[in-house]
């Protein structure tokens, strides 16, 4: 017998609970009875259908008559099911089809379902239920045990809209132990969909943010309702930003249910090759594009225009808003004609033409007096790991600057979900999912949830996926609870037995880079095993030597090589590089920048420097950088480790900083460009009065072009020397015009008007860099301050990313305790 009776269990009313509790305590069905009950189930369902005025939504039961089953569920699909809680009592097997269901002889399961559906959703859901059924049939065919009947949770039911906005998935009460013998259904849905928050209590987003968005939407929709021709401009455009998984979309969906508006969402056409799209290309048909080819540049404005004109098709009054909306359909009613235009699937605005079209469409949409529907953008904040913004889609490029500047839009920034919220949500979901004790899979314990929540970096989508995946693993290991969830978050060593860390190790959480400095610290602190019996799994070179010299005693190097002997490493540098999530280039730069403070002996540092220099040669050609990158990292880190035998006596912590190289390069580039420009300006000024000397006020300073090298190495330094020397000692006509000096820092340069170094007439952007160029050496050497270093700390390219919880941009102290575990 391969049938399995299944029942729907969901939220129950008070009455149901009571019923249930008594039934659950009643008895546990024996296999024989289960078989019997299933046999007669069709009859019962027939009865249910005929006798109950409001038919139940299909209980996803399995039976041996697929055809009938299908017709059943189809029949249910067509039924309109208002929000209702009903109880189906599966009765004692009874040959009499005419037996009334109201007289249950034997209750074996409780089906309690809160049907929250609108008609479209229910048909869809039931259709999928049918497919799920067939799937389940297959699996059940292969299942060996069919002894137990299952009170199975139908996930499809769960997804139905909850019009009342009540909490839908709650931690089951103790009296809800429905059927102890229940086994888990096969997951048909991702939890992120299954547990989509339907009320504010469920959503893990900060209440204040939700309130913000709600307030804006209410305001905006209210204005749309009154159809004010000139609505307040700021109520037309809302931009939600934030990292992925912060609940931006969930909030909109939640509010759409709560405030009863429709979401009209843009999705990018699939067949658009945006790279080849230019505005004029597609008007001509002869371009070889198929008929189905849509230009994004055209379809996006069309979408906006259409969306702004078409009112909501309001057939929803019977479904979603059945509880509180007016029953009559009237598309003109403002209550029903509420809609927002959501643009989440952003067009490819990296393409110039597309961007222009999108900007134009947004502009004209906002400008048009007829627009009634608020426009909502959801822009995921894609700040990449190194703070380089993914330039393809950012807020800056998406929204036209004039729109951004004009006060027509509101920006609400979401933060990554706080760990407490996240843990709470995960715990709730886990509890709900595992309310049946025998549900297959691993129930994530508190520690696992904690780890998942932390390693997801506030991304609830990722955390839920990870948790769902976590539950799927085989329970091969003893269910001891301590075995699972041992993925080390950070600061813990990973030398614990592999089998233990596997459980969560397989669950790929979103990689968080909070511990970049931790991994750098691994290399910089250079911890080594001091005890001999530790296998040198981490050091391949030693491993190799150990394989050639089988015994440990023989592993010691010959005397002439003894100076190269190093204890085995505690951690693998390649792994550190892997985990630091950095470019090999950046990785080396970080190591290079921070290593000197860890070294005590200059001799060792010289060796390390030699290795780093060698490694850098590999990255010299950009073509090679991709392939040789990992070698660069390896040579750098291993070179550092090898050379570093005499560490600085352990301090509490070393401050780690980001490298300055990029700031330096940028500044050099700026100055070099400025120097060339200034030289040209000087040359230009001099050229009209050629051949003449200082008689005219703006006489030529230079009469020939100089290469940049000469300018920077010879001319400008000396010009600055001239300027620093008192001009009065020079017998040049001294007509001082101090007013011409616009820049304070170049005051000393001033003096005679015909002084070439009076650079007040240069364009202002040159002034700054030039003054820098001219005056940098003028400070006495003792006071040399590396301005760029401070600047670096401020605007370092990685500072945009919160590195640590402390939000300290570049200098997260790496605690010694972080690294050591003893």
């Amino acid at each position, binding site marked *: 017998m391969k049938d399995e009776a299944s029942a729907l269990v969901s939220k129950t009313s008070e009455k149901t609970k009571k019923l249930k509790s008594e039934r659950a305590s009643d008895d546990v069905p024996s296999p024989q009875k289960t078989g019997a009950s299933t046999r007669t189930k069709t009859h019962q369902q027939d009865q249910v259908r005929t006798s109950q005025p409001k038919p139940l939504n299909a209980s996803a039961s399995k039976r041996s008559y697929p055809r009938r089953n299908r017709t059943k569920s189809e029949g249910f699909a067509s039924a309109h099911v208002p929000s209702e809680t009903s109880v189906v009592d599966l009765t004692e097997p009874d040959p009499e089809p005419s037996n009334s269901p109201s007289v249950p002889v034997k209750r074996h399961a409780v089906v309690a379902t809160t049907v929250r559906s609108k008609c479209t959703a229910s048909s869809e859901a039931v259709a999928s239920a049918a497919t799920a059924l067939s799937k389940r049939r297959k699996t059940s065919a292969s299942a060996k045990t069919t002894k137990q009947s299952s009170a199975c949770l139908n996930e499809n039911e769960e997804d139905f809209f909850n019009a009342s906005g009540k909490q839908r998935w709650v931690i089951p009460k103790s009296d809800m132990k429905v059927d102890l013998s229940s086994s888990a259904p096969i997951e048909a849905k991702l939890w992120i969909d299954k547990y989509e928050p339907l009320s504010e209590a469920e959503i893990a987003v900060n209440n204040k943010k939700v309130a913000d968005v709600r307030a804006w939407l209410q305001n905006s929709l209210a204005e749309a309702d009154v159809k004010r021709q000139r609505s307040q401009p700021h109520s037309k455009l809302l931009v939600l930003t934030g990292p992925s998984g912060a609940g931006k979309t969930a909030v909109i969906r939640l509010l759409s249910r709560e405030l009863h508006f429709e979401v009209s969402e843009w999705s990018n056409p699939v067949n658009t090759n945006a790279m080849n799209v230019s505005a004029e290309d597609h008007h001509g048909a002869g371009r070889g594009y198929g008929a189905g080819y849509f230009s994004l540049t055209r379809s996006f404005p069309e979408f906006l225009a259409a969306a702004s004109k078409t009112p909501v098709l309001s057939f929803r009054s019977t479904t979603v808003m059945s509880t509180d909306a007016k029953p009559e359909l009237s598309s003109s009613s403002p209550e029903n004609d509420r809609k927002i235009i959501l643009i989440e699937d952003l067009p490819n605005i990296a393409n110039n033409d597309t961007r222009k079209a999108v900007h134009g469409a947004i502009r004209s949409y906002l400008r048009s007096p007829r627009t009634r529907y608020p426009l909502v953008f959801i822009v995921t904040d894609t700040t990449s790991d190194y703070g380089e913004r993914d330039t393809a889609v950012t807020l800056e490029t998406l929204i036209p600057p004039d729109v951004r500047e004009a006060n027509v839009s509101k920006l609400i920034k979401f933060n990554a979900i706080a760990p407490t919220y996240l843990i709470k949500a995960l715990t709730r979901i886990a509890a709900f999912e595992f309310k049946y004790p025998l549900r297959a899979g691993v129930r994530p314990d508190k520690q696992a949830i904690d780890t998942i929540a932390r390693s997801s970096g506030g991304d609830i989508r990722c955390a839920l996926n990870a948790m769902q995946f976590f539950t799927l693993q085989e329970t091969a290991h003893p269910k001891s609870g301590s075995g699972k969830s041992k993925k080390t978050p950070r600061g813990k060593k990973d030398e614990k037995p592999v089998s233990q860390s596997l459980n969560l190790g397989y669950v790929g959480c979103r990689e968080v880079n909070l511990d970049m400095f931790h991994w750098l610290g691994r290399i910089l602190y250079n911890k080594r095993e001091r005890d001999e019996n530790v296998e040198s799994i981490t050091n391949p070179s030693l491993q190799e030597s150990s394989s050639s010299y089988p015994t440990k005693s023989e592993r010691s190097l010959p005397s002439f090589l003894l100076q190269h002997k190093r204890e085995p490493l505690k951690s693998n540098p390649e792994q550190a590089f892997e985990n630091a999530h950095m470019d090999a280039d950046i990785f080396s730069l970080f190591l290079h920048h921070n290593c000197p403070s860890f070294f005590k002996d200059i001799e060792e540092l010289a060796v390390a420097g030699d290795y780093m220099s060698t490694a*850098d040669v590999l990255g010299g050609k950009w073509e090679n950088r991709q392939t040789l990158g990992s070698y660069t990292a390896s040579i750098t880190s291993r070179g550092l480790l090898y050379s570093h035998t005499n560490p600085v006596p352990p301090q509490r912590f070393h401050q780690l900083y980001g490298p300055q190289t990029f700031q330096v390069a940028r500044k050099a580039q700026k100055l070099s460009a400025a120097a060339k420009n200034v030289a040209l300006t000087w040359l230009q000024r001099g050229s009209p009065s050629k051949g003449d000397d200082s008689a005219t006020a703006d006489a030529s300073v230079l009469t020939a072009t100089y290469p940049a090298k000469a300018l920077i190495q010879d001319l400008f330094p000396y010009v600055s020397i001239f300027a620093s020397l008192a001009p009065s000692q020079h017998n040049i006509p001294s007509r001082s015009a101090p007013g011409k000096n616009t820049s304070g820092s170049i005051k000393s340069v001033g003096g005679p008007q015909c002084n070439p170094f009076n650079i007040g007439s240069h364009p202002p952007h040159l002034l700054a860099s030039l003054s820098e160029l001219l005056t940098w050496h003028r400070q006495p*050497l003792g006071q040399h301050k590396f301005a760029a*270093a401070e600047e670096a700390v401020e605007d370092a390219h990685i500072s945009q990313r919160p590195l640590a919880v402390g939000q300290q941009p570049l200098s997260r102290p790496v605690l010694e305790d972080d690294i050591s575990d003893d």
Partner: protein
Amino acid sequence: MVLWVDKHRPKSLDKLDYHDGLKQQLIQLAGNGDFPHLLVYGPSGAGKKTRIVALLREIYGPGVEKLRIDLRPFQTPSNKKMEISVVTSNYHIEITPGDVGIYDRIIVTDLIKEIAQTQQVDANAKRAFKVVILNEADGLTRDAQSALRRTMEKYMGNLRIILCAESTSKIIAPIRSRCLLVRVAAPEVQEIKNVIFKVCKKESITIPDLFATRLAEASAGNLRKALLMLEASRIQQYPFSDDQKIFITDWETVIKEIAMQILNEQSPAKLLAVRNMLYELLSHCIPPDIVIKYLAFELMRNVDDIIKTQVVQYAAQFEHRLRVGNKAIFHLEAFVARFMSIYKGYLMDIGMA
């Protein structure tokens, strides 16, 4: 006011001060009516540009001194519109392709082609060809140099190219073979002194011989620097005294300071201090190869002969890596660390530390 360097720059070939043999050859070349493409090379401040301009003046007359500065637009293959500033006269055009970085190939092909395809505007010009001066030719990318090879052949009819470079080693062989190589060596101390005296005479000031010698020696064969130093000294104090301070550029001061710091203390902490100064040099556009060179020689001046070979060996090694490598600071610092290590070992050996 014009810098003395520019003010007293010889304008014609016969007024050139040194390299008499070269002067004669150039005069003959100019008188010949035609000349091939030129590759003028020599160290900075040796007088390459002076000779080029003088040659042009010899060919075209004083018209070449009327300079304009134009912005020439051009378009990269990715349809990016860029501009390059060029210095032009009626007869010649001067470009620094390095200004546009990796797009220098486009300058070499398109821009030069554009120039070459138009005839000489001035009907009274003495020559039918125009001249394109390419500054900093050794900074041209390989691509650009290969492109230039073709351009040179194709437009020989109405175009001559004068390449100006510091060394021929970075010019590909096909170009070298297509050009007449003109080497402008750095002037000797005596030659620089002569120029100094000449300038002083023109400026009607007197300079003691000893001071002139000191200036000439300090300039290390860079005449431009010698004249700038002279002018700086003149501003600071006149009449000159023999032991007057000679101004050296500030980046040299910084490098000297770095050397002193290295010699004073050899420790990782000092290396960090040195790193900041190195960064300061780099951020002020002092090329890293210059830094390592100056630093090496500055250090060598202060150490015992025993370790000099080692120092120079490592300087060469790290400069080589610096050229093929990517991040200059790695190599500069590695050199400093290496020197510190060597020097510290040496001090230990002689029992001073």
